[in-house]
């Protein structure tokens, strides 16, 4: 829902402005509608709490498998601690048969009594100490908040055409995919009309996270629930079994973490203040077409 050059009436509304002097000409664009901004910040909090409490839950059995059962010979990943011949504790990470020493972070890390066996370290879990019951309580509270926020946003995005107008990549967007990747790698960012819209990589990333990764995380999470398995018995087999669902749920977390790091990197690169302001107030200052770089009409 972007209203380029059509600021709504009301207090705080900025007319398209020219900021003179040393900077290129800037135009204020109303970029994020209120529902988007609210959903964004709720989801930020949810992902943080869900990741930390998820690692707490994972620590109760810090291994992942493929299939219905947790057979030791079908281990995909394991965090464990072993004693060296000299009696010291060593943290190990085993992924698909490969083994890495990860003492201090994974498998064995410090607590009040010194080095001890734990999957993820204290700083990566909620609560920080070993407390599965409380980890589950946090996880399910914020899972509910995430699901309700996600559903509300999906309804809003479809009803307001935000989804079809701004998020869903169109065939002609995909034609510009190569150019967009090249520009991203050269750290060149669009200006003018183009800066007022999401570029094709943003569209793919945001659509994928909101309508792909998010629902997949919820589904793989629910697939671990024995009652859910009784309600829709065909879902868990489609995911490869309950332990596979647990593994996929864990992988989805790391895709979320990867997305978040890339997202923060891009925000930092294209202006922290401008980006954060636009996600708080809705208003984004876009360099006009007469600015530093010209990227043609790609949208």
């Amino acid at each position: 829902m972007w209203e380029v050059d059509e600021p709504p009436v009301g207090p705080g509304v900025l007319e398209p402005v020219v900021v003179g002097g040393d900077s290129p000409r800037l135009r204020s664009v109303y970029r994020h509608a209120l529902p988007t901004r609210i959903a964004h910040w709720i989801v930020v909090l949810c992902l943080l709490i869900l990741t930390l409490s998820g690692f707490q839950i994972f620590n109760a059995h810090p291994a992942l498998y493929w299939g219905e059962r947790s057979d030791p010979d079908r281990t995909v990943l394991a965090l464990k601690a072993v004693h060296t011949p000299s009696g010291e504790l060593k943290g190990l990470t085993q992924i698909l048969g490969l083994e890495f020493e990860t003492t201090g972070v994974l498998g064995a890390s410090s607590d009040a009594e010194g080095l001890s066996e734990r999957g993820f370290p204290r700083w990566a879990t909620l609560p920080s100490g070993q407390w599965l019951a409380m980890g589950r309580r946090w996880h399910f509270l914020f899972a509910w908040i995430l699901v309700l926020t996600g559903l509300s946003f999906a309804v809003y995005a479809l009803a307001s055409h935000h989804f079809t107008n701004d998020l869903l990549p169109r065939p002609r967007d995909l034609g510009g995919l190569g150019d967009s990747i090249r520009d991203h790698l050269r750290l060149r960012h669009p200006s003018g009309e183009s800066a007022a819209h999401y570029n094709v990589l943003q569209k793919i990333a945001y659509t994928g996270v909101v309508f792909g990764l998010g629902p997949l995380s919820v589904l793989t999470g629910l697939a671990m629930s024995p009652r859910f398995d009784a309600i829709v018995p065909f879902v868990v087999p489609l995911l490869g079994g309950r332990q596979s669902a647990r593994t996929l749920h864990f992988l989805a977390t790391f895709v979320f973490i990867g997305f978040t790091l890339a997202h923060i990197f891009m925000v930092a690169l294209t202006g922290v203040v401008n980006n954060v302001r636009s996600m708080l107030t809705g208003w984004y200052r876009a360099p006009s077409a007469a600015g530093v770089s010209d990227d043609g009409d790609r949208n």
Partner: protein
Amino acid sequence: MGIAINRRRFAVRALELVGVSLLAGCERVHPYRWLMRLFRPVESATRLAQSLLTPPGALAREFSEADRSSVFPSNGTTSPDEPAYQAHVRRGFVDWRLEVGGLVERPAVFSLEELRRLPSRTQITRHDCVEGWSAIAKWRGARLSALLAEVGVRPDARYVVFYCADPMDDEANRYYESIDLEEARHEQTILAYEMNDRALPVQHGAPLRLRVERQLGYKMAKYVMRIALVSSFDAIGDGRGGYWEDRDYEWYAGI
């Protein structure tokens, strides 16, 4: 400097003393009581949502013989550290009896032989531990619905409580669990006396364990000695319906 350290030591000692007396005064007071008030409605919401979406009589998925785990982990108690129980093990549970009482028309005791004569069910199901692991085994046992019909459930009964033989801590708290009558009368809810075609082994709860296949493993009490029907479990243990529930785990373990 010395005084500062001494003061700090004194403060720490004082706090320890206050903490100790608090612990002695009330059961398991922890600093997150207010959080639990926030979390409890979440459990109710999950339970309500899942029960609304459950088709009547929906069954937990069942598996084939070939799907069974070659090794089934034994979690929690593996052999109750209690003389009376160990004596039962030595005598092969011949004089072991299950007591059924509380809000029932005809309180009764059942020998293993009598339990075996009740209508039974055999099922190969997946056991999901709250810790995250899963194992598949074949269970055979008396239908809890048949046992309840035998003793007659009084109209004011709402929950079935299972009292177990295993002492869990130094305070002599024993394992216990509870389920509601709907779950108790579910087709797959059985009191299992066989696992993988053999008498239930000690590490899996001999001679009798509960199977509640649409919930997590901690609901499936091992070493069941006594069953009571109650209208409320407020007065049992810390009042939250089970040993682990008293330690902040959800009473509704369908997720």
